[in-house]
């Protein structure tokens, strides 16, 4: 049983050498292992900022609050320590790292997170199986990390990493955007496999209730102006899709 807690989190985006702007204005959220929480909210409301601040992205700085994984303050860890502690972020815009092959990257990553190098043959098989499950052509293994991948291909590879790394807690930032109908299904099945096998806690950021037909959310939160504006059950997602965010954006403006 893992508990993931965000308490009073405030964070700035670092714009230039001197310039910064507060985006997160006090976020509170608690997620237990096995639970899936969806976050929906208008463009620019700070959803990705929340994800990046938790992961330790260099362009963001936490100014107040705590992020606890089983009581341990994640914010005191380096970026790689967070991942090794069991955190994972599937990014909205995965990064291209030229010249580093996908297979080499995955093996380094799996070695770091598991604490020991998997046997080459076993790992190769494991990787190929996981790729197959996500309908990824084996040829991608020798390409540079995300190098020249299409938007949808990048998203599939984020979920490939989720499957291989098996974190305790995962944030999926708009993993569904940019996916065609078939890919959405394949990727959702991947997420559901990891959920079923590992009891991972998931924070799923999305604009569309479509993915929630495949990946069941236990709770839905509305994110507006840098904080959680309302929380509810799965039915909230449908309400938001038909009504929009107007009432949250206006409130407290």
């Amino acid at each position, binding site marked *: 049983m893992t508990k993931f807690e965000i308490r009073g989190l405030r964070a700035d985006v670092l714009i230039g050498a001197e310039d910064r702007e507060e985006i997160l204005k006090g976020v509170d959220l608690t997620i237990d292992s096995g639970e899936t929480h969806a976050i929906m909210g208008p463009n620019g409301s700070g959803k990705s900022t929340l994800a990046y601040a938790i992961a330790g992205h260099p362009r963001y700085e936490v100014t107040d609050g705590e992020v606890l994984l089983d009581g341990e303050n994640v914010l005191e860890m380096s970026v790689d320590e967070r991942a*090794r502690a069991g955190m994972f972020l599937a990014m909205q815009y995965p990064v291209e790292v030229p010249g580093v092959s996908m297979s080499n990257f995955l093996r380094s990553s799996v070695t*770091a997170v598991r604490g020991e190098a998997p046997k080459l043959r076993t790992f190769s098989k494991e990787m190929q199986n996981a790729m197959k499950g996500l309908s990824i052509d084996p040829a991608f293994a020798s390409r540079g990390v995300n190098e020249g991948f299409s938007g949808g291909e990048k998203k599939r590879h984020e979920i490939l990493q989720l499957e291989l790394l098996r974190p305790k807690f995962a944030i999926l930032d708009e993993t569904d955007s940019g996916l065609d109908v078939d890919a959405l299904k394949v990727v959702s099945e991947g997420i559901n496999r990891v959920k079923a096998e590992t009891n991972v806690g998931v924070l799923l950021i999305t604009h569309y209730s479509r993915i929630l037909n495949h990946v069941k959310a236990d709770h839905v939160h509305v994110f507006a102006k840098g904080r959680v504006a309302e929380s509810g059950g799965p039915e909230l997602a449908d309400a938001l899709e038909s009504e929009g965010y107007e009432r949250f954006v206006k409130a407290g403006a």
Partner: protein
Amino acid sequence: MASPNTGVKEHSHGGDLPISRLDTHGSFDVAAFPVPTGREEEWRFTPLRRLRGLHDSDGAATGAVTVETQAPEGVSVETVGRDDTRLGRSFLPNDRVSALAYSAFSEATVVTVAKDTEVSEPVHVKVTGNSEGEAYGHILLRAESHSSATVVLEYAGSATYSDNVEYVVEDGARLTVISLQDWERDAVQVSHQYAKVGKDAKLTNFMITLGGDLVRISPSVRYAGRGGDAELHGLYFTGAGQHHEHRSLVDHDASNSRSRVEYKGALSGEDAHAVWIGDVIIGEGTQGTDSYEYNRNLVLTDGTRVDSVPNLEIFTGEVEGAGHASASGKLDDIHLFYLQSRGIPADEARRLVIRGYFAELINRIEIPDLRERIMDEVEEKLALHE
């Protein structure tokens, strides 16, 4: 100290046509070149006092190097005296150091790949220095028509060394030369490598500079016929206090010639200084030239200095493609963030990204042992400043 110099015309674009600023006239006569002062365009980046006399000495060799060779069947390797008539026919020294080296060497190494011979095993030529005094050398690499071979030219040990290397790639031949500057930390080298690329011939050059206190290399390419192709790849890792200078000159003096110049470097440590000068001339009256050059520098620490200067001179309107690019920057922290966000520790993430930066270039070397060795040496230098 005149030398048989047939087959090389005085190098100009003739009559009342514009004369290229980049295209220096050559001579075997040392006295034809004044002693550099450091104010000249070609010398302004080089710390002359660290040359230990290679630019202003009288040419008396007070040091020595040993040359070891290893060649597969089909390739002949000879050690010859100054009077060998095959030497000095493909080029004219284009500065004082080059002319001085040509006037001062006592033995030359001649590698010949016979006509129509294709060898897959590489030829090895290893120059090792073991003293500080000035030493001079000369190497002629000749790929006869329609032959194909790879030469690994390696420099090691401690020396104050100046040499000329001739690459003669005859019609239809393919020659790959990997020049590995793997000197001890105290060595000084000035090297001129003159390539003459024949009709439909192809030269692939890798200039790998890792060692030395000061290494200044000037690879140049001329075309002896149509359809020649030259790829000049360079890789350098310049550590604290080192000066690595690469000055390439590609003279597209024949039609339908192609060139690619691609140099990638990394700098790390106080007073690491890398210089890249990329000169390309597209000659008057030539057609269908295709040329591109670029230089990238990865700056890993404070206190380093990069000078990167592409020069392109076009004397004709009929160019198929010509361009250049030059960029210097630090490691991308977003690349590192992505790798670290997958659990990879910071130092390993750095190594992966730097490996990736060089990998594309190194992977084109078709000798696996050499690829690994270069990558390992890059990582050793990297570890010094972590």
